[in-house]
């Protein structure tokens, strides 16, 4: 196999780079060790498109986040994914927090996020009736927004595929070959891939990949974040992203709506050494309850439909780095991509494209670049007339499989045969939300399993929850 550019990792950043490069007349392959795009961190986070108001002023991260935010309205419209500029508020509950507001606003100004405003107690309580009544005042960050992080990655990947890029899933890089200070290609579990340029966007594992070329002058220390997702019917809801005033130690735990109308509460921030530890803990979950109820006293964590944890790829020493090396032509190393990674993925994409051009890659823009992508028809969002028409066109849309989220068999079959195919139960869940409702797959799980096996023409025992070893069924009863 031969390609011009090989991207390692199909998280938000790797996928955004791949999509960006698909705008040019290049061969691009993106390899991903997991069974699906969306990586680790990119799908388990707070799902916020940030403004960069609290970034470190003058840093690369600040520039990338601040410039990425305004692009999302058009991009999400083009990619046919939901996006909402609900805005964030930072309420100060204590005098100590209140005293910090000017400092936070000043930092926002330094980051050129000029639309951050002060809010009075009355304004805050009007905007968020569930807020702690002791609130003294706060800040409003109008362009902080919410997105479905997983759909975002899938949509970018599908759009990249439409423009000629290739994604190789369940493909792990095991070594990188260099010669005379120049990238030659990579050994993978799917064979050797010859490439002139390699971009390390392996996130949590970027230090392991960097070690393959001796550029691991840093290491990744995973920082766990645990979350709760609450039922759409929970009685205590917020309308904005409600952020705590950060302390020296932590950015703190927030509560916000998800793009699908659930409530998201969390995260914790716990430094780990194990990159595979995505367990939730009683201590972690309890600490969320304790902290968030200071902001939103009536939060009903009993209405939880799921809890999960994600790992941020925290860099040690800290900071976002996009590095090229004079002694290793053709290699780009990304590290320190953290909570702002989802937002800045797209600006990182163009930044990396610029680096490649500077390295001498011939980048000819495709005049026939397809900017728009059409997602799977969302049955439950259609009017009754449109639903009726869709069922007449394809009767599979007449069969509801997930009743909590009203997901049809038609949508599931479409996802299985999409450009980035859904091949596991979780892959279906992430794309369509089948099994993400309040029954958590109790009803639809067995049906999704049957449909997957039928469409992929395999045994149900071959179907996994996500990774290769996460089998669901261990054989036939009879």
């Amino acid at each position, binding site marked *: 196999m031969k390609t011009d550019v090989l991207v390692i990792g199909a998280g938000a950043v790797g996928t955004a780079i791949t999509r960006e490069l698909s705008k040019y007349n290049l061969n691009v392959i993106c390899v991903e060790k997991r069974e699906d795009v969306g990586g680790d961190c990119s799908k388990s986070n707070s799902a916020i498109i940030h403004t960069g108001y609290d970034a470190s002023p003058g840093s690369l991260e600040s520039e990338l986040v601040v410039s990425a935010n305004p692009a999302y309205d058009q991009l999400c419209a083009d990619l046919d994914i939901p996006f909402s500029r609900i805005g964030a508020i930072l309420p100060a509950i204590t005098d100590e927090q209140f005293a910090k507001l000017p400092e936070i606003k000043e930092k926002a100004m330094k980051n050129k996020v000029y639309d951050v405003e002060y809010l009075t107690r009355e304004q805050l309580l009007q905007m968020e009736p569930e807020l702690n009544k002791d609130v003294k005042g706060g800040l409003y960050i109008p362009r902080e927004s919410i997105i479905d992080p997983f759909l975002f990655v899938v949509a970018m990947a599908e759009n990249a595929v439409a423009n000629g890029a290739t994604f190789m899933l369940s493909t792990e890089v095991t070594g990188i070959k260099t010669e005379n200070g120049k990238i030659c290609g990579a050994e993978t579990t799917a064979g050797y891939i010859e490439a002139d340029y390699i971009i390390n966007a392996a996130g949590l594992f970027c230090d392991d990949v960097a070690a393959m070329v001796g550029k691991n002058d840093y290491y990744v220390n995973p920082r766990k974040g645990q979350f709760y997702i609450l039922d759409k019917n929970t009685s205590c809801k917020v309308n904005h992203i409600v952020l705590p005033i950060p302390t020296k130690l932590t950015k703190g735990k927030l509560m916000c709506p998800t793009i699908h109308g659930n409530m998201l509460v969390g995260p914790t921030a716990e430094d780990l050494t194990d990159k595979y530890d995505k367990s939730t803990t009683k201590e*972690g979950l309890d600490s969320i309850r304790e902290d968030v109820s200071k902001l939103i006293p009536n939060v009903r964590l009993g209405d939880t439909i799921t809890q999960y944890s994600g790992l941020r790829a925290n860099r040690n020493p800290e900071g976002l780095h996009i590095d090229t090396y004079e002694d290793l032509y053709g290699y780009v190393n990304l590290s320190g991509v953290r909570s702002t990674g989802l937002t800045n993925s797209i600006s990182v994409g163009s930044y990396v494209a610029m680096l490649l051009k500077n390295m001498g890659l011939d980048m000819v823009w495709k005049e026939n670049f397809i900017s728009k992508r059409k997602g799977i028809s969302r049955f439950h969002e259609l009017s009754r007339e449109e639903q009726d028409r869709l069922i007449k066109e394809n009767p599979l849309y007449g069969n509801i499989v997930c009743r909590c989220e009203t997901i049809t068999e038609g949508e599931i079959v479409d996802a299985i045969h999409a450009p980035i195919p859904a091949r596991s139960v979780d892959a279906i869940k992430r794309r369509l939300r089948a099994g993400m409702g309040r029954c958590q797959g109790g009803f639809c799980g067995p049906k999704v399993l049957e449909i997957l096996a039928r469409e992929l023409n395999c045994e149900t025992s071959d179907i996994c929850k996500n*990774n290769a070893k996460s089998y669901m069924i261990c054989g036939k009863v009879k």
Partner: protein
Amino acid sequence: MYEITCDVAIVGGGPAGLAAAAAAKKEGTEKVIIIERDETLGGILQQCIHPGFGLKLFKEELTGPEYYGRFVDKVKELGVETLMNSMVLEIEKNTVVCMNKEHGITNVNTKSIVLAMGCRERTRANIMIPGTRPAGIYTAGSAQRLMNRQNEMVGKKVVILGSGDIGMIMARRMTLEGAEVVAVVELNNFLAGLTRNKVQCLDDFGIPLLLSHTITNIKGNDRVEGVVVSKVDEATKKVIAGSEQFFECDTLLLSVGLIPENELTRKAEIEISSITNGPVVNQYMQTSIPSVFACGNVVHVNDLVDNVSTESAIAGASAAKFAKGELGGGEEISVKTGENVRYVCPQRVVGGGGKVDFYFRVMAPKGQSVIAAKDGDKVLCSRKTIKVNPGEIEKITVDLGGVREIVIESREA
């Protein structure tokens, strides 16, 4: 869009819907339609292949399929119509909007509606077990469906959380099919399900029942590798530090309770009880929208299907009377819960005389008790019982004549 007209539309073709349909038809209504999302009638009983059904109603021990089979024969004989593979999207006063592959969006225009959607299982998130999220965690009902209807074996070495009936029945079912059931773990210091199931499903196979224990962690990244089981304080239910034991297993089944399935009811803005999570009904099983009736596990989670059938027949007959304009109304009397009673169903009654059966669950298990219905200080009726248990539904029949208020209690003797 496809339009259908009928007298009584029944949402759900499980045991509740079937009994309601038969009763509605017997009451003399012209056109009764069952709207069912599955391709076959019978609901959850299709996967309940075990015996234990029908002891009250038929005086013989039937399996789930035999039990619903009798009702299916009956509704067919009576000429009840069915709309199969049809999912109900919403209900209004006199319309049920549903969809199917054949007709697309279908409006069923009806004089009355019976809600019989059943219930769903509580999940891991509802009980907040921390740990990883591997494959191999199933609710007992999903595992039952996979095994008994889809021929899929869900695991080989199993721990079951919750001593509800489905959990215990799955313990036996999996053992019979060659799996090893390591233990059944129960948070309370008493059994959640029926004693009969403990004897026949656990004791018969030497499966340990750990009362006052719970699962405090789940291990395994890809597939379940084991669970941590801890002892809890009997009174506070708090985990006792240092009591953790690791149980190796590849599967965790959850049998931690059922919740009435009331998405449609909520959307229709029908009054819902915060205790049962089902619609508030009167003795006719009539909800806060007079043309809408409800029965079975959608109203409150029952212990025996026989009770569901009895209650659903009332709903069906009342819905039929309503369709004919014959259902009486009257002054509303509220029904209150007294000592050791968690909820009573129906929650209210209308109109003067007549006998009404009240079904209720107690809060805590107690020995010899006196179950009584009172109007102020006046005891309307009472009976003695050897013991009461939250897992079993109790019944008391009250004559409404001249009654102004009803309080139902279960007092330890």
